[in-house]
């Protein structure tokens, strides 16, 4: 058995304009993917070449760190060396196929220390062009980068095929309704895995590694150092200009002079200028201060070894991790749902007595959403929304403070701020709900067949005297999920409501009641987009606290039937 879902577009086909728009969208993915695949592939081919070159003895003449003001990675390793091929001496400055550069002086200096002047090493020489040589073969792990554009190529190509093959199918009158592509759960898992990997990599680089370095640097020794240069570097991109602190300082270890430009661990380039200007002002060229040097590696140093507030930016990539994990779970759940749309279908075959229910022992029913989960969800959404909005509000605040009237942007931001305030209000409401009285339900079954009597015990947790108008009822509803444009919407329609208990004044804090599942009830149904949901609802008013409104899912099973009868 296999199961799938078809988008509404596969029936209606969408307009030609929609298909063209979709094609352009997919082409952009495809072209972007192919372009990056080509760039990475070209670089990889260059990296592979030295692996076919022969090793030749060579002598290092000089090695140093060169500052290149034009590049973001301003420090470049320059090594000059000589080698002899067929009696002729050649000279080269190539360390690897491409330049060895970094924004960290210390990293390049560490690399340079492998090539002391006068040192005798092996270099790799192109046999057909002896003037071409390198000191190092570049790592081929870079080849894995080729995997990254592949999802874009796949999304683009498959998207175009899907758009136009869908058009072909819908133009036919007698399309087999049962001939449908397999579930795209695998593609979804792959797609969200990219989010997850990117999130883990970015969180490691921006948060975990700097925190580990901060901890390690506690053991480093303070060494007197002199500021060589101190400036703010700007980095322009399509998203605007960002700034970073670049303070170069020198220090001596065992008589040798070293230089480094690491100010803090985990420094990133960001949009704020004034804060960075204040830092740079603290360290003018020529000033003597202390820096911290790794005793095991004198090229490894930092000016400020403590954790800074900027490190918390490293929490932002966690959103990608959450989206990745959530998306993978969603894809797997959807795939399972589409495989088994009727809960308890296997059990239904095994139940011999039509009046029996599934469980013989009492079961505690679980609410669909716990108050803690509601609160956590509300906090997450409020933080996410207001975190983004606060960037713009901060910018506006700064503009107004400096006398620049951003009237249009201010008006534009008002609805976003209001939504943010509502979300904060809901988070506070959800927090209060943690302390509100709740109802716990236990039953002799968490599922039942139509016509079965179910024993239900309820008890109030918390201050029962605050609870009024308690209402418990059994409800059946349809849920249909559909997509319009980019929005997925779920409509609900209740088709059955069976009262179980209604009390205006809650005298005792617990009771046991019985209800009967309607004999003609439809079983629960849980396909990917269409569902029949049965649930026990508990609603009550709570004085001066959030009201009780909890849903406890309850499965209605198919009727057990007699063995198959030949028609």
């Amino acid at each position, binding site marked *: *058995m296999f*199961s799938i879902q*078809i988008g509404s577009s596969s029936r209606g086909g969408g307009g030609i304009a929609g298909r063209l728009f979709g094609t352009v969208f997919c082409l952009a993915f495809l072209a972007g993917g192919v372009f990056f695949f080509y760039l990475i592939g070209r670089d990889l081919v260059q990296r592979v070449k030295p692996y076919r070159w022969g090793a030749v003895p060579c002598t290092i003449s000089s090695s140093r760190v060169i500052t290149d003001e034009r590049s973001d990675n301003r420090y470049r390793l320059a090594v000059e060396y000589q080698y002899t091929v067929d009696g002729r001496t050649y000279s080269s400055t190539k360390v690897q196929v491409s330049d060895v550069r970094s924004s960290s002086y210390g990293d390049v200096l560490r690399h340079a220390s492998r090539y002391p002047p006068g040192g005798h090493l092996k270099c790799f020489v192109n046999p057909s062009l002896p003037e071409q040589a390198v000191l190092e073969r570049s790592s081929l792990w870079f080849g894995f980068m080729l995997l990254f554009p592949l999802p874009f190529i796949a999304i683009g190509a498959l998207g175009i095929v899907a758009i136009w093959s869908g058009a072909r199918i819908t133009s036919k009158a007698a399309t087999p*309704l049962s001939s*449908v592509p397999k579930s795209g759960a695998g593609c979804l898992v792959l797609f969200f895995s990219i989010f997850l990997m990117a999130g883990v990599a970015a969180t490691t680089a921006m948060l975990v590694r700097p925190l580990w370095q901060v901890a390690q640097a506690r053991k480093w020794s303070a060494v007197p150092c002199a500021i060589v240069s101190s400036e703010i570097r700007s980095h322009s991109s399509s998203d605007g200009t960002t700034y970073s602190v670049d303070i170069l300082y020198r220090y001596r270890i065992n008589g040798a002079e070293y230089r480094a430009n690491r100010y803090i661990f985990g420094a990133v380039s960001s949009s704020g200028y004034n804060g960075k200007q204040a830092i740079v002002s603290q360290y003018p060229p020529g000033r003597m201060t202390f820096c911290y040097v790794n005793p095991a590696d004198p090229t490894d140093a930092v000016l400020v070894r403590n954790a800074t507030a900027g490190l918390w930016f490293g929490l932002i990539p966690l959103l990608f991790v959450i989206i990745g994990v959530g998306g993978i779970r969603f894809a797997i759940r959807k795939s399972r749902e589409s495989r088994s749309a009727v809960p308890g279908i296997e059990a239904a075959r095994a139940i011999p007595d039509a009046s029996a229910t599934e469980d013989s022992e009492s079961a505690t029913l679980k609410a669909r959403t716990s108050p803690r989960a509601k609160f956590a969800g509300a906090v997450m959404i409020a933080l996410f929304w207001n975190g983004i909005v606060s960037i713009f509000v901060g910018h506006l605040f700064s503009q107004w403070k400096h006398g620049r009237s951003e009237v249009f942007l201010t008006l534009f931001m008002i609805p976003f701020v209001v939504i943010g305030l509502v979300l904060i209000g809901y988070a506070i409401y959800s927090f209060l709900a943690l302390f509100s009285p709740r109802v716990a339900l236990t039953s002799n079954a968490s599922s039942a067949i139509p016509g079965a009597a179910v024993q239900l015990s309820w008890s109030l947790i918390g201050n029962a005297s605050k609870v009024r108008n308690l209402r418990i009822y059994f409800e059946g509803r*349809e849920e249909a999920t*559909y*997509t319009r444009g980019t929005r997925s919407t779920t*409509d609900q329609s209740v088709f059955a409501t069976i009262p179980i208990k209604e009390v205006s004044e809650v005298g005792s804090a617990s009771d046991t009641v019985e209800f009967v599942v309607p004999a003609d009830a*439809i079983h629960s149904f849980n396909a990917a987009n269409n569902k029949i949901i049965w649930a026990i609802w508990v609603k009550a008013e709570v004085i001066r606290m959030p009201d009780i409104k909890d849903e406890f899912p309850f499965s209605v099973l198919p009727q057990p039937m007699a063995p198959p009868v030949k028609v």
Partner: protein
Amino acid sequence: MSTLRIATQRDRRNFQPGEEVSGAVSWTLEKVPKSAEVRLFWYTEGKGTRDVSVLAQQQFFDPKASDERSFQFTLPQAPYSFSGKLISLIWALELVIEPGDHAERIEITVSPTGEEILLSDIGKVTT
């Protein structure tokens, strides 16, 4: 001109879960098809995006351009045929012939009563 036909035994359309459903299919095509099969499946109609689940399929080997074959399936316990305000679940048998996406489909009803369950009627009658 292609002709496809699918019929259940005694033209029966109402079944109970677990019952066997059998019948015959026939087709007349201009060319010999590559494959021919009959499928037992359900699908949803209504407001939600369509869900489809193929429960069983019976493939006919060595199909001729003009042919007639019989089929037999055992219906599962669920889901039942139902219809509500937002969703309808429909059971069907479909003859599919490739190449060309030739198809012929008949709908059947599967429920304990043999009739489609109307969600609006649930709980209205006390037993």
